[in-house]
């Protein structure tokens, strides 16, 4: 579904991505793990069309999107939840969610069917995160961190993505809340959304994902199925820590 080949990118003189190869197949959850500053977020921004001067190859469902506009990329079915969640704080939960469907509401003469579909997707978000239904009119800025992450994922889902990019959804959340968020990601995946998950919390990410990539200093240093990576000596030492060995 997503095919990245020999991708190079940087900010000015600084090279951040140095020949990335990565593939996400339809129906998978793939995770990209690695330390701070390795280039994880940069890769996501590159896929979304935010970076200038990309070199290499990015194919989405066979189509070249290396130089496509963000608007077009979203229209093709990629959606991203940014690292800071990127919510519109003063706007209400329902306004944030409806903004996710922005492109679907674009253009004149939207039929009742289209609107009904959007309504149905909204219901699906509420099925996933029931708490949001009771907070519809509340400004997103006043919600807890976990609820904000729910809105962010729900909003990304409202664009009806085929591929969902998640940038550190566990950041700053309590373990129980992370569990809930990750469970929701699994449900979305079972409903047909392919996921590329960027995480620092390697243990959790690998337990959720089918396959994983390890990125260091802008290079993919390791790849394999989640089970392989979880048992890999270097990964254990560098990312999983003692708690995993004990468990």
């Amino acid at each position, binding site marked *: 579904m997503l095919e990245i080949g020999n991708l190079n990118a940087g900010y000015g003189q600084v090279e951040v991505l140095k020949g990335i190869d990565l593939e996400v197949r339809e129906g998978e959850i793939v995770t990209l793990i690695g330390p701070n500053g390795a280039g994880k977020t940069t890769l996501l921004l590159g896929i*979304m069309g935010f970076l200038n001067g990309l070199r290499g190859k990015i194919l989405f469902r066979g189509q070249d999107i290396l130089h496509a506009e963000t*608007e077009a990329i979203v*229209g093709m079915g990629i959606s991203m939840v940014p690292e800071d969640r990127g919510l*519109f704080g003063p*706007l209400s939960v329902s306004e944030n969610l409806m903004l*996710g469907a922005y492109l679907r509401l674009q253009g004149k003469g939207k039929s009742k069917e289209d609107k009904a579909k959007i309504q149905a997707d909204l219901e699906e978000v509420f099925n996933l995160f029931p708490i949001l239904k009771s907070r519809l009119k509340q400004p997103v800025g006043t919600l807890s961190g976990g609820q904000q992450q729910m809105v962010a994922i729900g909003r990304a889902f409202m664009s009806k993505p085929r591929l969902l990019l998640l940038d550190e959804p566990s950041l700053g959340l309590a373990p129980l809340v992370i569990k809930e968020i990750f469970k929701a990601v699994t449900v979305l995946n079972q409903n047909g959304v392919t996921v590329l998950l960027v995480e620092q919390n390697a243990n959790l990410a690998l337990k959720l994902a089918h396959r994983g990539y390890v990125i260091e200093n802008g290079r993919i240093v390791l790849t394999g199925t989640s089970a392989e990576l979880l048992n890999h000596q270097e990964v254990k030492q560098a990312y999983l820590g003692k708690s995993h060995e004990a468990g």
Partner: protein
Amino acid sequence: MKRQYQFLIAISILLFLVPWMLPNRYLLNIAVLIGIYSLITIGLNLLLGYAGQISMGHAAFYGIGAYTVSILTIHFKWDTFTALCGSLLLVGIIAWIIGKPILRLKGHYLAMATLGFGLIVEILLNEMMELTGGPQGLSNIPKLSILGFSFSDDFRIYFLIWGLVMLVQWMMMNMMRGKMGRAFLAVHSNELAAETLGINTSALKQAAFVISAVLAGLAGAFYAYSLNYISPEPFAFNFSIMLVTMVVIGGMGNLWGPLIGTALLGIIPELLRGFKNFDIAFYGLLLILIVIYMPKGVVSLLYWAVDKVSKAVKGGQ
């Protein structure tokens, strides 16, 4: 939102009665001028309060609108209504062309660039003597007439302009209620996130810039048609600052803010005339007090009052 529309109807009725309540012609002229300024500030609020982009050069669009209709009717003998359409088109095209590069800038840089544009236009108005008449300006601009109906006296001009203001206000309310309004607020609140949702933020900013410029051009054309005389002075840099002040004092990002701010800043100088030479000092003091105690603009006073009243009503029941 329903209350907003009720408010619009109430204001419209009030404005309809105003000309009969004003004791003299002079005050009617001021009411017309406030209407003209309101057209600009409503548009500027779209840019400033909703799209989150500053412009320190909107007086230039106001000036281009005024000068274009004047030049087209005086030098080229165009019919007044055709000249009006031509001037709006020209302002729109100019705004579109300069908006493209300028709106890539942010914050102070955008302020500087728009300010520069305003100064360039100001200089051109002064120096292009053959067309603009230079510092002396142009006189004998005809009255606007549409399909044979001439807006020849102040009453007619008043109703035309305030009718338009209410129409523009209504259109703005409709726009902000829907998808477009949400998109503007999204861009203002978090530009990157807005883009991840497929919102074309640069197109949206560009649209706000062009719409606000065309409204300023429209105001300029009406200014020329109602005063029948123009000079570069009212379109200078000072007025650009005045426009931003009106929006900020009234309350930016609120649909009623610009109308309130414009009315206040239009009326206050008249009320301060009793202070003779000290009026400027009082004016400045008032602005400082408003900014300190009502950072969200005078419109917040209105919301506070409505809240109090509705609580009192509920308490009484």
